């Protein structure tokens, strides 16, 4: 028999995910690894991750990786890219990291048009610290710091990250994808590949926001969590490509 689905080569040998059961980080990292394999860039990568569940990327991927303080992945990546413009540089963050504490760094990296690719996992909460209100927490969503649900008067609105990044002139690609169904997972991989490809083509900043579930902090089964992504998140955070610059400059 022939193996038709196997662990990507860019995963570390004998890695064991330390995420909670049903967490979509595992799928997102696998997709990143598959794209790295397909583009054949593993040996050229220096990646940067900052604090949050996302920081443990270096335990799972067989690539060079530097840790940054919370929110500073994009700043650190900018430093790496400026020091070694010939290397492939990407970041892997959560929404709290990318769009709250690190929003200035994220936006300015996009505005400068750094040739960096960036993956942001949006699960509408701070996962690592136990499910607090984050920048993407949905209206009405109950978290440990919005016990009666997010209402606008008290907490303001969630941020639509991919749309904001698309507005930056230095952005070459910005898309939002989800991991709740097989077709969405396939689309997510294509989006990651494009976000990586714009860096290889020297077009600018490549960005993918991935809607993910956090069953533990949402207090749901993994299947119900995926249902929530579909029924509650996607209507607020529509999937799609918000900006795409092609090689001929369009």
């Amino acid at each position, binding site marked *: 028999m022939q193996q*038709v689905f196997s662990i990507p080569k860019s995963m570390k040998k004998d890695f*064991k995910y330390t995420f909670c*059961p*049903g967490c979509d980080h595992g*799928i997102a990292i696998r997709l990143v690894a598959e794209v790295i394999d397909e583009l054949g860039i593993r040996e050229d990568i220096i990646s940067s991750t900052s604090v949050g569940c996302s920081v443990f990327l270096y335990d799972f991927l067989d690539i060079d990786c530097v840790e940054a303080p919370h929110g500073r992945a994009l700043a650190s990546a900018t430093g790496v890219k400026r020091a070694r413009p010939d290397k492939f540089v990407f970041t892997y963050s959560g929404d709290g990291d990318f769009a709250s504490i690190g929003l200035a760094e994220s936006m300015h990296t996009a505005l400068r048009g750094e040739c960096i690719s960036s993956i942001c996992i949006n699960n509408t909460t701070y996962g690592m610290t136990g499910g607090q209100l984050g920048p993407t927490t949905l209206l009405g969503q109950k978290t440990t710091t919005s016990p009666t649900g997010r209402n606008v008067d008290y907490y303001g609105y969630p941020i639509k990250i991919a749309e904001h990044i698309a507005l930056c002139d230095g952005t070459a690609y910005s898309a939002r994808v989800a991991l709740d169904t097989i077709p969405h997972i396939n689309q997510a991989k294509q989006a990651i590949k494009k976000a990586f490809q714009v860096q290889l083509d020297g077009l600018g900043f490549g960005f993918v926001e991935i809607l993910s579930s956090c069953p533990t902090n949402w207090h749901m089964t*993994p299947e119900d969590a995926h249902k929530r992504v579909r029924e509650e998140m996607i209507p607020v955070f529509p999937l799609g490509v918000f900006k795409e610059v092609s090689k001929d400059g369009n």
Partner: protein
Amino acid sequence: MGKIVIDDSRCKSCYICTMTCPKGLIKKSSKTNRLGDYMVEFNDEKGECIACAMCAKRCPDLAIEVYK
């Protein structure tokens, strides 16, 4: 005809695969893992698996290998 192999050391018993398999070939087993959760098992007596790999693609822990 296809076949899957589940890596029990990676599986965290989230049961996404049990709900994903179109043929219902993956089920909770009576064995428990170190957290006391029932582990999953692949049972394909009639040779129904077509190696669609949907279970593997949705497995968050990369615990499933698929053969054809």
